[in-house]
């Protein structure tokens, strides 16, 4: 399934939707749209081989958690198409990027725009921290650092079964602080898992601010290589560089693309908030209005009428 839009258009559309959402709600995970829009747009619009969605465009309400009494339970992965052998699979490892991921589903025609209006509403499956029943999600990743390991297991299993489809994991740089991330790479190298791919939003940010001020992680590209992955570092806002990175040979090893990004790319006024960009909430009506005008101009849209 391919979209008519260019990937640049999809990325812009993602940012416009996340911006509108954040204005209306007086805050949100806004900077993640700045840093990650190209990556998610590229995955869904170009790179991933996905079938047509198997779930309705307007998300169903929350249908309960997995349990023996809930035989109809299903995850939200159907928005990425069916689980047949030829298709790729994607995990959004940092589940707080859900808002950006939902906007991507809408921009690529996989979810109706109404889906975003259900975001974080009581009884909705479109959760703030993407749950495995949320659109586009297949596993729970709100506890950061577990996504790559699950991806590795799925990739190993699919390889054993001879499935040609690849497994992709979208990661955040905060995840490299968790030891589990490194255990995952170690296992991939040991077991020669080369049908696993990750693209990481290296925005140098985490909740407390700049990563270097919270826990220095150093040269992660070299670390990933030393642990046994193939690793390419690119400008995460340069689509052609991302495209080239995905072509890197990585026989017997997973491929990890480090997308170096800016947490205020295309929304210059967000720099005022640097280095606290993880969750942006407007501190006054005046600030909200200023951000509205400035970001709307940056994104080429009218300011959001958030009073309604």
């Amino acid at each position, binding site marked *: 399934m391919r979209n008519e839009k260019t990937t640049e258009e999809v990325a812009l559309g993602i940012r416009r939707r996340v911006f509108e959402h954040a204005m209306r709600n007086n805050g949100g995970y806004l900077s993640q749209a700045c840093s990650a829009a190209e990556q998610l747009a590229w995955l869904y619009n170009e790179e991933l081989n996905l079938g047509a969605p198997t779930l309705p465009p307007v998300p169903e309400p*929350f249908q309960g*958690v997995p349990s023996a009494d809930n035989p109809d339970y299903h995850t939200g992965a159907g928005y990425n198409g069916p689980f047949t052998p030829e298709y790729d699979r994607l995990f959004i490892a940092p589940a707080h990027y859900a808002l950006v991921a939902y906007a991507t589903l809408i921009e690529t025609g996989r979810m109706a725009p109404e889906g975003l209006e259900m975001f974080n509403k009581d009884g909705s499956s479109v*959760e703030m921290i993407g749950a495995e*029943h949320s659109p586009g999600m297949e596993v729970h990743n709100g506890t950061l*650092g577990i996504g790559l390991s699950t991806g590795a297991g799925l990739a190993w299993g699919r390889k054993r079964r001879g499935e040609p489809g690849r497994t992709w994991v979208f990661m955040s740089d905060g995840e490299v602080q968790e030891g589990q991330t490194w255990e995952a790479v170690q296992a991939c190298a040991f077991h020669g898992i080369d049908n696993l791919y990750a693209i990481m939003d290296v925005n140098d940010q*985490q*909740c407390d601010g700049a990563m270097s001020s919270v*826990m220095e992680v150093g040269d992660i590209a070299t670390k990933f290589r030393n642990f046994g992955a193939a690793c390419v570092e690119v400008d995460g806002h340069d689509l052609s560089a991302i495209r080239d990175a995905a072509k890197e040979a990585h026989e017997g090893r997973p491929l990890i693309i480090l997308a170096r990004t800016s947490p205020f790319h295309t929304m210059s006024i967000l720099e005022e908030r640097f280095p606290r960009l*993880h*969750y942006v909430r407007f501190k006054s009506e005046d600030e909200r209005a200023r951000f509205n005008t400035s970001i709307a101009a940056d994104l080429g849209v009218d300011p959001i009428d958030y009073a309604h």
Partner: protein
Amino acid sequence: MVEMVSRPYATAFEKFAAGNPDILCLSADLTSSCEIDGFRDRYPDQFVSMGMAEQNMLSFAGGLGLAGFRPFIHTFGVFMYRRPYDQLMASIAYPRRKVRLMGFLPGVTTPGGMTHQSIEDISVMRSIPNMTILETGDATEVESICEAADSIDGPVWCRVLRGSVPRLFDTPIKVGEMRVLSEGDDILVVTAGITTEEAMRARSALANAGLSIRHIHLHTIKPFDHRQLLDHIGSVKHGVVTLENHVTEGGIGSLVAETMADAGVGKRLVRLGLKDTYAHGGSRPYLMRYYGLDALALVRGIEGLMGQEFGISENDLDAARIDDVHSLVKAEAL
């Protein structure tokens, strides 16, 4: 109208810890979310940033304990025991290190869903030898949690409320005691944490229905004064209802059940809480209604125990407080 206190932990921790070189403040990249950002900025020498790496943080805290420090660890409760459970056991609980584990967002107090809701922590902690468990139910308890925890010779698990917190009590936590909020003789209601406020919402409706409720609030879950609880159970005619922001297995409902069984008490017990299920994301009032943790659930539980309906509906209960999803007292919307 109940008094609301803004960020009581922020003020209390700073007052307690500032200038005491043996107290260290550890954080795993949730510094504003756990209200210790002001402390970090004003007392950088007592603040140790551990990054988002909880397993290391717990064993590191054990090491600090060996060096004679009393670390206060801050993160969301779930991240402090699920992944680093082994570290909690081997580095902290077994050797009885004086580590104070400040777990934020207890139970369904967060819309973050399964990965953010600590719904079985009390059960886990109760089964750990050497662990002390405290839970805060109002601003006064949050304000006194640091002293209470630091009075313990060993590790302490604390369920801490954050943001805008109601003031229900005017005396600090006294470890090992329980609060008697009403002294009726029909039914004993046992609550802890945020469920105490729910039980208080049902108070007048139950009184109007002619029920005499004895209500006990627990801030100390382990160690536990079984004798005192048995005295209260002995003072009521019909039985006991527990209501907890936790699964009904292993929490305060189990604690009461064990106490009754051990003493051979033959009264009815109704345990309310999450019934062997995970929760999902949503606002606190929605989750408390959906999973049966609110005032109305308590009324229905009491009706079940009495085998009688009292015609109490939502309108008869005191109004629930609605927290703003987006409010300046929280670092994010979790």
